């Protein structure tokens, strides 16, 4: 039934797509008079050759893993959750409340508390669109994207009018108490005479993201609920016939999805800025869609794609720091990767499928 072997689907197509994106990006860089090879080396050196560079790459990757998993879980139920951005934003409020108003004795307890807060707030923000979809048939793509704007407005109101410390110009909360500061990679991996990950924001949340990857894999492929989610995704009428309630699955899948998206704000808000800022999600909710698409909705694929996008973000920062490539063009490069791995997937897939089919005919 499969037109081509699994490895080609999982490895070959993303690699070819990446290569095409890289070639086009190189042409773009050439067109503005910079050296694409030097730019590429600068990105690799800055993102992967220094421990601080890795610290940034993994920090971004942590965000993308959470949001990528969020999109992937919903997608297994054929629900397109593009509200990860809003869910993460609202979850930031949860993290801020947990960190600011509960006197935590130790960061490990605070981390558990903040994770619960983030997951609950994120899930809540996904619950309303999920309910509207399940009970009223309001299309979830429309409602989740509208909820992104509602979350932005709500966050703005809370930060400007309620949580901002007096006299501060910055619409942000006060810095969280010392006891809630998460250990960064520097704290964890440095020795006295060898400081690693200096100044980098990667922190212990990265390991929560890894655990989330494993848990999502277990949930989707090893539990009854995961089976129901996938069955519902393959065929709603088939699932109904088997006694699976569409309302229940839609709501549960969206709650899990929202909770995962929400968890990213533990990384940004508690791990990096140590206060809630207005712009803490920075589009990671949307990058999650590309990450899930590229990772084929499999947690391991999401993990790899998240690292790749982390590399693009950190490498892009290096380009912005040391070259004259304007930041708009760095966004173009990132967009080309998304375009080729996500939107133009079939452009690579169809010729490859034909190729494999003709090879198989040759064998027979």
């Amino acid at each position, binding site marked *: 039934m499969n037109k081509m072997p699994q490895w080609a689907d999982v490895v070959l197509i993303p690699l070819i797509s990446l290569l095409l994106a890289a070639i086009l990006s190189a042409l773009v860089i050439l067109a503005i008079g910079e050296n694409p090879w030097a730019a590429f080396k600068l990105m690799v*050196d800055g993102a992967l050759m220094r421990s601080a560079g890795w610290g940034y790459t993994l920090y971004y990757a942590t965000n993308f893993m959470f949001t990528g998993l969020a999109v992937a879980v919903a997608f297994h139920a054929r629900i397109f959750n593009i509200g990860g951005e809003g869910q993460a934003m609202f979850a930031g409020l949860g993290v801020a409340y947990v960190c600011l108003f509960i006197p935590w004795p130790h960061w490990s307890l605070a981390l558990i508390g903040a994770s619960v807060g983030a997951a609950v707030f994120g899930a809540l923000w996904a619950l309303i669109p999920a309910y509207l979809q399940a009970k009223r048939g309001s299309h979830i793509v429309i409602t989740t994207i509208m909820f992104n704007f509602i979350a932005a407005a709500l966050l703005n109101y809370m930060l400007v009018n309620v949580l901002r410390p007096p006299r501060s110009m910055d619409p942000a909360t006060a810095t969280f108490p010392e006891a809630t500061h998460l250990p960064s990679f520097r704290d964890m991996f440095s020795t006295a005479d060898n400081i690693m990950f*200096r100044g980098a924001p990667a922190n212990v949340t990265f390991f929560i993201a890894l655990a989330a990857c494993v848990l999502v894999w277990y949930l989707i492929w090893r539990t009854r609920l995961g089976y129901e989610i996938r069955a519902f995704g393959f065929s709603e009428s088939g699932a109904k016939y088997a006694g699976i309630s569409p309302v229940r699955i839609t709501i549960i899948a969206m709650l899990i999805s929202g909770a995962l998206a929400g968890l990213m704000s533990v990384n940004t808000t508690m791990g990096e*800025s140590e206060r809630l*800022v*207005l*712009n803490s999600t920075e589009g990671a909710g949307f990058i999650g869609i590309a990450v899930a698409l590229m990772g084929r909705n499999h947690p391991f694929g999401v993990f790899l794609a998240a690292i790749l996008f982390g590399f693009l*973000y950190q490498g892009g920062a290096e380009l*912005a*720091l040391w070259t004259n490539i304007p930041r708009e063009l760095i966004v173009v490069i990132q967009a080309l990767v998304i375009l080729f791995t996500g939107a133009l997937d079939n452009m690579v897939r169809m010729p490859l499928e034909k190729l494999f089919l003709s090879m198989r005919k040759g064998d027979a």
Partner: protein
Amino acid sequence: MTLMQKFLGAAAGVALSAGAALAEPALIFDLGGKFDKSFNEAAFNGAQRWAEETGGKFLEIELQSEAQREQALRRFAEAGANPVITTGFAFATPVEAVAGDYPDTKFVNIDGWMPEVPANVQLIGFQEHQGSYLVGMMAAMASKTGTVGFIGGMDIPLIRHFGCGYAQGAKAVNPDIKIVANMTGTTPTAWNDPVKGSELTKAQIAQGADVIYAAAGGTGVGVLQTAADEGILSIGVDSNQNHLHPGKVLTSMLKRVDVAVYNSMKAGADLETGGFTILGLAEDGVGVAMDENNASLVTDEMKAAVEDARAKIISGDINVVAYYENDSCPAHDF
């Protein structure tokens, strides 16, 4: 050898051979971007002027992400840049966090606020409410309908601060004046949404406003355009925007970010740090723009009133209340 290594090598070489005094300054633009026609661009113009006058070079970066704030500060400091100038209040906290690790580097933050200023940090603030007060007076004097408008960018305290000074100025001229105030949005796109600026302008005209002050970054371009098209007056912000629609822009509230950047770069490593620099009317840090483009709009009466108020604010006879003194405005409820 990569570009970065070359660069770092060169920077280290300079630092070793000539000492830190010859280090290049660095300028970090906030997320709005270098060419926002307003705040960041003014900073860039100041740096550009310094570069042209001295033949010097400066490092620069336009940020893409919140996490890059500390990163850019650290990387420039490690590369030997001095001083490192940042634009925007959002840099206050990262600068505060980073400054202690680089005691030999001087950091400048424009618009920020810190409870305690580290010894190698200088904060530069502007008395925007004073400048806004003056343009508010002019708006009230130019208005025939008794209604003036204010269009802000994102709904943040800084913009309420602009609007609050404006409202106080307008009320000082005409206590019965009606002030219509709108904010463009609650996301950063509010700084660059001329279409929405134009819609808000039309809505305010429908409510009777015939002079509108735009403190909204790139969004203000739409406000000024629509005001000119509809035959009412507008007021620009930050840079002198009178020339955008000659004879249609009443004046502009100047905020001399360019001068602040220029002076900081000129002082270089000798920059005085460890405190606040407040630039108000007295220092010409803020002011109203008078040039040939708005000469026909400004009456002698207006000029006299503005001059008089300016002198009184400097001497302390008029107290313009800053919005963040107690996070509320006596003249308008935002």
